[in-house]
């Protein structure tokens, strides 16, 4: 092979190398900007987190103070004043409801961040589950004259009237609760919320529509971020701390589902979730046909050892 190269070839080679170097440099510059942007984002997130912790302390301590005070007051009420008792018990229920809701979210968020959230798939009676979530809000919504309508559109023909769907009941409940809680939070007094449920293409859809403040396009992209709160809430019944929707989204990951928002500022919002039917994992996920191939690894050519 001839190692001599002409000047022209040399120039060509050098300019090619120069170009390559410039490209690498540009790549590094891009990476640097990316990391700087990320650093700033992480710093912001950390600030939100410490804000969250101080918030949460208040949100746990305040309801407890109310609950303790109200119970004490009830204990000293005369028997003939039972109406007073009813209204105080309603207040206790309201505080306890919020507390329960917030604590569940905080614990779920902690579990998700620790990687300890696993699907627990069972046959779920969808209608009962959604009705149960709606009922849990009844005292709160009655006080605000919000009417929650449940439009259950799964018809006979999908099996029988008691329609069962394979998913994780607790997680689905928490997802719908958080979306409904948001709808209530951003609804006006004396309005309605429509909860719809239907099947399409073997996917289960649940939508929650409110006629409240609505979310601007800009805010729609940030509402799933953790600790993010929009300051446009009308009702202070559930202060919240911006965990709800990020939890809903993370839980939907576990259920392999999706969430979609349609909203117009001033007209209200519709959140729609869709989830696929999950396989019921028997107690032994190794069992079944696809677990077998490793059993004869010694004879199976397809199995590589590392």
């Amino acid at each position, binding site marked *: 092979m001839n190692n001599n190269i002409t000047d022209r070839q040399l120039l060509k080679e050098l300019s090619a190398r120069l170009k390559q170097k410039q490209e690498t440099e540009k790549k590094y510059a891009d990476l640097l900007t990316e990391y700087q942007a*990320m650093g700033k*984002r*992480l710093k*912001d*997130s*950390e600030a939100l987190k410490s804000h969250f912790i101080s918030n949460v302390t208040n949100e746990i301590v305040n309801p407890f103070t109310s609950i303790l005070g109200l119970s004490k007051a009830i204990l000293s009420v005369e028997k003939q004043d039972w109406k007073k008792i009813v209204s105080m018990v309603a207040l206790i229920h309201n505080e306890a409801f919020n507390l329960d809701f917030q604590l569940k979210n905080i614990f779920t*968020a902690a579990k*998700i*961040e*620790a*990687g*300890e*959230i*696993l*699907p627990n798939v069972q046959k779920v009676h969808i209608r009962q589950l959604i009705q149960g979530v709606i009922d849990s809000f009844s005292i709160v919504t009655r006080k605000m004259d919000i009417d929650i309508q449940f439009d259950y559109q799964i018809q006979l023909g999908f099996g029988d009237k008691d329609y069962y769907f394979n998913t994780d009941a607790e997680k689905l409940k928490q997802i719908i609760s958080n979306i409904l809680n948001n709808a209530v939070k951003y609804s006006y007094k004396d309005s309605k919320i429509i909860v719809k449920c239907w099947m399409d293409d073997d996917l289960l859809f649940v939508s929650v529509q409110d006629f409240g403040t609505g979310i601007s396009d800009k805010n729609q992209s940030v509402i*799933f*971020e*953790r600790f993010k709160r929009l300051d446009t809430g009308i009702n202070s019944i559930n202060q919240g701390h911006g965990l709800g929707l*990020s*939890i809903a*989204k*993370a839980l939907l*990951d*576990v259920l392999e589902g999706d969430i979609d928002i349609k909203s117009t500022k001033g007209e209200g919002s519709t959140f729609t979730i869709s989830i696929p039917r999950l396989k019921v*994992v028997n107690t*032994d*996920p*190794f069992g079944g046909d*696809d*677990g077998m*191939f*490793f059993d004869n*690894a010694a004879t*199976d050519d*397809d*199995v*590589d*050892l*590392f």
Partner: protein
Amino acid sequence: MEYSQHFLYPSSFFASREPYVVKTVLGSCVAVCLWDKKLHFGGINHYMLPTWMGTDLASPKYGNIAIEKLIEKMKFMGSRVEDLQAKIFGGGELLQGVDGGPSSTQIGERNIQIAKLLLEANKIPIVASCVGGQRGRKILFFTDTGEVRHKYLEKRQF
């Protein structure tokens, strides 16, 4: 050897001093197996996306968090980082791009890169790997020996 079994779901991780066989199924996800050569036990994660950007919950769905958390857990269980060695699997490009070539998002490739980057930063050697390609994989990880049995999936699932 009597093994207990564990099925590893995406966005979670697992480590044990007891002998376990851990099974997981990977598409563009990546699993990092860490094994302690002195104490003879191991742990494994399964993440879906490379980097947590500080927006949603900081879960082991993201490579940077999943890897840090697994190392932390191994340390908590008695390991010294210098005794750890790694094997990495997965990171296939299963989705096709518009031109029929590999997907432009390159999630698989980026998942592999973050593992290499973070393991190198922690000075944990990668002693074996089977990454990339266009097919899904099933792996079994034996926590006591650090051995991994690997098989490609027939169909392009996950």
